[in-house]
């Protein structure tokens, strides 16, 4: 009993001490310019975190090869925010601000984590460069958020408008997954159609992980839909188009970002041909700037880059340039530098608006010969 008591108390004392000790030891060395990154390093979103980190590290390598930031090598301090866990994000951002004294933080990436932390960083202690696409992220009046992607609204609008113009039809049906992504998509699409005086001929939903979509598809057919917009995950989208082909339906399909992802194309096979989607990044984009990035990334990591690696590669480049152009790590000056900057990145040519939105374009992608091909780039 006594032994246990003593052992326990020693352990507790040690952990508490270690808490403050380790944190104190984490103070940045002054020989480097330190910025922070709040990424999902652990938990179910860790794969996204890995891509995020690889994109950042590739950018850091290039920046340091080109002379670093403010004449010193750039160092990125990573903290885990567990993706969409608000408390972990709060602690990660707080630590980066208070302990690492980072003037710029890459991430948090998830909209909910962004919104949870905005009360903490928007007072001007630090700038967050994120690719969170939730509409409220730049709509809340925060002056210190920089966003490298368009918001969810932009993606839906670009897709719907292109599809209507290209396919010359107003008979549009929607199949969406019954979660916040799907429901958000449906409400945006119907609002966009509504503005053009159109009502969707049918709106169907399914649960995440469903395998059989024949009921939803036959209702699309009965309603006379010529174009079906899918707002769902890549697995389900793949099954939807494959089953439509098996049922002999000849409607066209369009989808969210997932309808140009490798999983979708692999699962849908032939049926993927001609499916249109809106996406920020496809590695087959022939643009030489993008091909150069794809080559560098493949050489370093032996895998194709995807959207999050590209987005945070760009975010790192943007942050380094802004600090260099401000000539200081003072957040207010860096934020002013972001506002003046024009930067050609992998996702877009960035130009920052007052609310922090810096990306005003999206690619319309069609699957051709089993590859996602950029048809056009919509600028807004």
């Amino acid at each position, binding site marked *: 009993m006594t032994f246990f008591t003593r052992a326990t108390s020693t352990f507790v004392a040690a952990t508490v001490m270690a808490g403050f000790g380790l944190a104190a030891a984490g103070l940045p060395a002054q020989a480097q310019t330190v910025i922070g990154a709040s990424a999902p390093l652990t938990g179910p979103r860790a794969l996204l975190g890995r891509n995020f980190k690889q994109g950042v590290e590739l950018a850091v390598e290039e920046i340091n090869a080109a002379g670093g930031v403010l004449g010193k090598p750039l160092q990125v301090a990573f903290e885990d925010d567990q993706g969409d866990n608000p408390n972990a994000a709060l602690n990660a951002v*707080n630590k980066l601000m208070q302990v690492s004294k980072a003037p710029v933080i890459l991430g948090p990436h998830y909209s909910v984590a962004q*919104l949870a932390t905005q009360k903490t960083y928007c007072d001007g202690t630090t700038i967050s460069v994120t690719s969170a696409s939730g509409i409220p992220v730049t709509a809340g009046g925060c002056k210190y958020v920089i966003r490298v992607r368009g918001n969810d609204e932009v993606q839906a609008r670009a897709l719907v408008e292109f599809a209507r113009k290209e396919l010359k039809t107003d008979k549009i049906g929607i199949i969406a997954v019954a979660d916040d992504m799907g429901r958000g998509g449906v409400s945006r699409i119907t609002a966009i159609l509504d503005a053009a005086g159109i009502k969707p001929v049918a709106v169907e939903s399914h649960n995440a992980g469903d395998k059989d979509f024949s009921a939803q598809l036959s209702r699309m057919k009965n309603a006379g839909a010529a174009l079906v917009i899918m707002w769902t995950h890549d697995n389900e989208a793949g099954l939807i188009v494959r089953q439509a082909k098996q049922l002999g339906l000849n409607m066209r399909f369009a989808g969210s970002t997932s309808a140009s992802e490798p999983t979708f194309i692999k699962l849908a096979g032939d049926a993927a041909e001609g499916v249109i989607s809106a996406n920020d990044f496809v590695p087959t984009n022939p643009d030489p700037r993008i091909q150069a990035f794809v080559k560098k990334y493949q050489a370093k990591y032996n895998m194709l880059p995807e959207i999050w690696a590209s987005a945070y590669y760009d975010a790192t480049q943007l942050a380094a340039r802004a600090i260099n152009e401000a000539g200081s790590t003072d957040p207010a000056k860096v934020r002013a530098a972001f506002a003046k900057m024009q930067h050609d990145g992998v996702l877009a040519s960035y130009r920052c608006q007052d609310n922090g939105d810096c990306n005003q374009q999206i690619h319309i992608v069609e699957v051709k010969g089993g590859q996602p091909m950029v048809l056009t780039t919509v600028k807004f």
Partner: protein
Amino acid sequence: MTGTSTRVALLVLFLAVLALPPFIGLNSYYLQVLNLAWIAAIAALGLNIVTGITGQVVLGQAAMMGLGAYTTGLLLLKTSLPWWIALPCALLLTGLVGAALGLISVRIRGHYLAITTLGLNEIFRLVVLNEEWLTGGAFGLRDIPVVNLPGPGASTASHLYLPVLGITVAVYALTLRVFRTRLGRDMRAIRDDELAAESMGVNSRMTKVVSFVVCAIWGALAGGLYVLFIGFVSPNNFVVLESIRLLLIVVIGGLGSIGGTFLAALVVTVLPEALRDLQMVYMAVFGLGVVIILLLAPRGLGILADWILAPFLPGYRDGPPVAVEQTTGISLERDGNATGPATTRAVPAPAESPLLKVRNVTKHFGGVAALNDVSFDVREGEILGLIGPNGSGKSTMINVCSGIVQASAGQIELGSSVVSGRAAWDVHALGVSRIFQNVRLWTSMTVLENVMVPHPDSRRSGTIESIIGTRSLFAKEERAREAALEALNLIGIGALADRTTSDLSFGQSRLVELARAIVNKPKLLLLDEPAAGLRGGLIMDLADILMRLRDQGMTILVVEHRVKLIMGMCDRVVVLNLGEKIAEGNPVDVARDPVVVDAYLGGKIKRDTTRAPGRVPRSEPIRSAS
């Protein structure tokens, strides 16, 4: 010096250290982590009350936090109520939800309850996610005004540090008080042995509801403080994983240990932050740390905390034990200050009026009739022996009389009140007390506490006064304590008062159970094989005690196998065989009755009565009974 002053000094020092951070210039990251630890400590304490102390496993505490957080947030956003009105409203609403959950827990038990609460947690998340017009959906409630209080330091985390810590300490102090008085004893009794608790007068339904309400309110308080301090709330704050984290705190703290929960909340919140520099593996190392804690101290951090908090826990006595005459077994003061009507009585008065009337009682378990149309009286002031071969329905009879099992047909009356159909605790309140065939004490509690539970002064203190801690509560506590000591002394085991019951020998436990059964001076005492497992000397001592109790005016119905004991102490005997009464009368006559003799040897001779057994298979819910 004595242990008390050392411990109190350590506690004061600990609290003083906790109050330091805002004054020593720690940055707001550390303060925020600590604030989150205090908030987790409050929510986990609620969970500990219901899971650790009352024994009802709940996996949905995050939903209670969420309900409190969303209610507070919405009231602040949609009405312009000040926070000090919004927060109590949220506590009230969540408390009501807790009451509903408590009522559910009366019906759903054990693992089923755990899964049900897990489901409720998920329902809460989905509703919050989907009702976007009210809750803001996946992106949560933003722009909730953060409370501004003056305080040391520059950041909100620093301003709110001392208030949050103060509330946490107050919540813990209040819970400690509830833990060691009437309500806490009832909760622990339900956890240790619900059946025994019910038959000793604990209204388990009410107690469970109250513990769920307190659990919900502490959860809501934690959620409300979170909102007032962070200014943001989303469905992702209150996922099932958060409930599991709170349960982890309760387990690491040692289920049921209040101080342990506080330490565990600190460890579970601070340790992952401390390990952050390990990057990808820090959560794995944290998990390893949890395993190490549980290996080193299977009872969790509670061991440490309970040592310091001992002066505030039940069963603590400063200094050496009070000198009580140590007894080897049962020592009776033969002519003590007994208040009974007579000290000796050779022959029972024949015209005694019946105290307990058992009329045509039938009890089916599925297709088996454990009791079949049994009728007899227990006369006031007698010891009635209930005997019969194994499986003859004796224990079922005791269970039916004490309200643990409800009769399928027939009626039981005590004086002018009908006993059958009442809950066990109501039967106890009418003056029926019992002991069990296999001793059923509440093993985590002290002997004294065991005996205090059924005392009328414990039973009479209301829920509200138990929580607030009025002066009348403490007066009742004191009376219950004195009466319990008196009962222990009467049985001759006053020296054991401060021992934990799990440390006792079987014989001692049996005597404690007897003291527990007589502390409320019951009219009728039901004894199910009181001598089972006792060695020879103790058995005759026991007979002495029972006769002495009878002489003090108590009526006793005793199930027993030992012929010697029955012959020695019973005034009359009722014999059951295969659920039917086959004989009744004075012990000597019954022992010679050929039907009785034959029943014990295995046959079944029918008396020339023409009653048909009439066993109707009937299915009905069966509660577990001894």
